[in-house]
């Protein structure tokens, strides 16, 4: 199944049993038309271009009996929906003395590599994960995407659900490859399409997926970065460097144990992060290992600046297999 279809399919499975699930967002009657014809127009609700208001409405709807999945066109536009997330959804558990959390899901495409430029290709998962009180999910395969969405629909707190656009056939077609047949994107095949269970089972939050045993290096990533890292791992293997790849799947909660366990063996941590480098995921992972007292060498391949529009600039700025390999080699030689 394709990635976005997997998410929708998990949502559909749960919508059958849970009448309180609704979807809110711009253009949803068209974008989620397949759900609309099955669940009716009352549950798939189009909105004006008012992200702050409808995200905020999603929060209080979630407090008063509904289970809204609020969709934003892109995570970049969370800039105009930050207040309901930072100051409301994330704070409700504390403010209400633990009595009244908001089980809202905020679903957003994210990530770059298809040429929309710096205002439309951000990742921002580490940025959002800085805020205590919300879960942050970044699935990297169709199976995970569906399973994590099912879990999100069972969480009793706000969940930010980020789908990398490169995984999504429909987004990529919507955002530039539709209507022309000649666009080549560096799309990880296993992220975009893969086997999924007949019936969705929840994939638990806070449990990383570990690929291989790394004697020499632990590479940690999420989203598209995971696939880049897996490719790098194969290349490095050929060079006699043994790396494992940890796909965190969720940033909040963070599977610190898996990271520590692996770094304890490898002694080297390489973080691959498409989100901005500073004050983000890579730093947090370094801290997680450092505060556990495990000695380790550290390097990171992250996005350092705003993402340039040009394909060439994009390539230079976003983490890719070559950079991962060369950083891994450097780290190995330390």
């Amino acid at each position: 199944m394709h990635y976005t279809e997997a998410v929708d399919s998990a949502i559909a499975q749960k919508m059958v049993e849970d009448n309180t699930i609704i979807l809110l967002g711009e253009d949803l009657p068209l974008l989620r038309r397949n759900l609309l014809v099955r669940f009716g127009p009352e549950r798939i609700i189009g909105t004006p271009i008012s992200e702050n208001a409808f995200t905020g409405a999603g929060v209080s709807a979630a407090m008063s009996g509904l289970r809204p999945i609020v969709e934003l066109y892109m995570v970049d536009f969370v800039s105009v929906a930050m207040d309901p997330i930072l100051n409301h959804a994330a704070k409700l558990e504390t403010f209400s003395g633990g009595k009244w959390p908001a089980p809202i899901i905020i679903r957003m495409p994210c990530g770059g590599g298809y040429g929309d430029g710096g205002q439309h290709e951000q990742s921002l998962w580490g940025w959002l994960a800085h805020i205590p009180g919300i879960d942050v999910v970044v699935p990297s395969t169709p199976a995970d995407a569906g399973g994590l969405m099912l879990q999100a629909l069972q969480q009793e707190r706000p969940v930010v659900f980020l789908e990398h656009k490169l995984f999504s056939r429909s987004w990529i077609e919507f955002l530039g490859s539709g209507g022309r047949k000649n666009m080549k994107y560096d799309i990880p095949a296993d992220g975009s399409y893969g086997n999924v269970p007949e019936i969705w089972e929840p994939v638990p939050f806070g449990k990383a997926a570990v690929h291989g045993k790394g004697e020499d290096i632990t590479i940690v990533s999420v989203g598209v970065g995971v696939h880049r890292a897996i490719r790098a791992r194969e290349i490095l293997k050929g060079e006699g460097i043994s790396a494992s790849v940890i796909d965190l799947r969720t940033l909040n909660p963070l599977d610190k144990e898996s990271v520590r366990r692996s770094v304890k063996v490898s002694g080297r941590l390489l973080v691959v992060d498409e989100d901005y480098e500073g004050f983000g995921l890579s730093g947090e992972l370094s801290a997680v290992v450092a505060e556990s007292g495990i000695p380790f060498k550290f390097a990171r391949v992250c996005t350092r600046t705003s993402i340039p529009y040009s394909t060439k600039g994009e390539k230079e700025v976003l983490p890719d297999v070559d950079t991962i390999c060369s950083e891994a080699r450097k780290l190995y030689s330390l």
Partner: protein
Amino acid sequence: MEKDLWFLYSLMLKSRLYEEMVTRLWKEGLISGEMHLGTGEEAINAGVVSQLTEGDSIALDHRGTSPMLMRGIDPVSLLLEFLGHPDGICRGLGGHMHLYSKEHLIASSGIVGASGPAAAGFALSAKHLRPEKISVAFFGEGSLNQGMLMESMNLAAAWKLPLLFVCKDDNWSITTESDKMRGGSVKERAEGFGIPYIKGNGLDVEEFYETSSKVINSIRKGNGPQFLHAECVHLEGHFLGYQLIRMIRKPFRELPRVIYPLLNSFLKPGGANFIKKLKGIKTVSLSMLKTLTDARKDPTNDPLQITRKKLKSDPLKLKELENSVEKEIKQIFDSVKAVI
């Protein structure tokens, strides 16, 4: 009129006396941070809140104490909240700007304008799950310039939500006169979203109850959102300890502290030319003068006084009611004292 004026007066009085008790505790330093009161807007709160029943929901702004009390929230756990006590309604974690009651479907926020989206979500779930139930957003006129409130007015109109927007207009946004920072009138603003606008009398609870009753019934019938606008005066100014109010009350103590640095800066070399500087002095002095002659000083702006006058025809009953509310407040205070 369903609820009689005696009842509405008792709601208002309870709220007033409760907030006066809060004021004392705040002044004693037992309540930390800011404290925004609803003193002066009781008629608006009572007129609307007294009509709400189970399943209706409320999104509050930073002046939530008074509507919460009127909606029947336990006054003791509310006060304990202000005192940061673990038995407070939010276990002492929220404080007066962040009051929540799941049972009553009430949420608050200290973010200007946030009651708009919150009420929209409540109204959306009412539409799905609680037919004929409505949601109410309380906010001040200054909030009308906050994007999210405007967005939520549009959202409510587009989705035809059962949502009552209640604009409590004191024409102040902290120290700024709101009408000077607003393009168009409040009426035009509401109508700019295709929302029916109704002006109520925010000082007279009897009138205001009638007005809101009509509006609320119409919303319950599925006619979509409406906008209720009422003027009022916040008797304590923006919040407790508000500097401008202190200046009014203790001019000799407070004014020099303000004026000395002003003059000092005015006389410094460099800066604008003299004409512009004078303009500056004029701006600042005018705004201070404006405060000194503020409506807050005028008792005819106190909704309690206005209703009380009407009830004076039955002085015995009035005395009785007032005694009983005072007693209630004392009891609340005593229960709280027993706990802390």
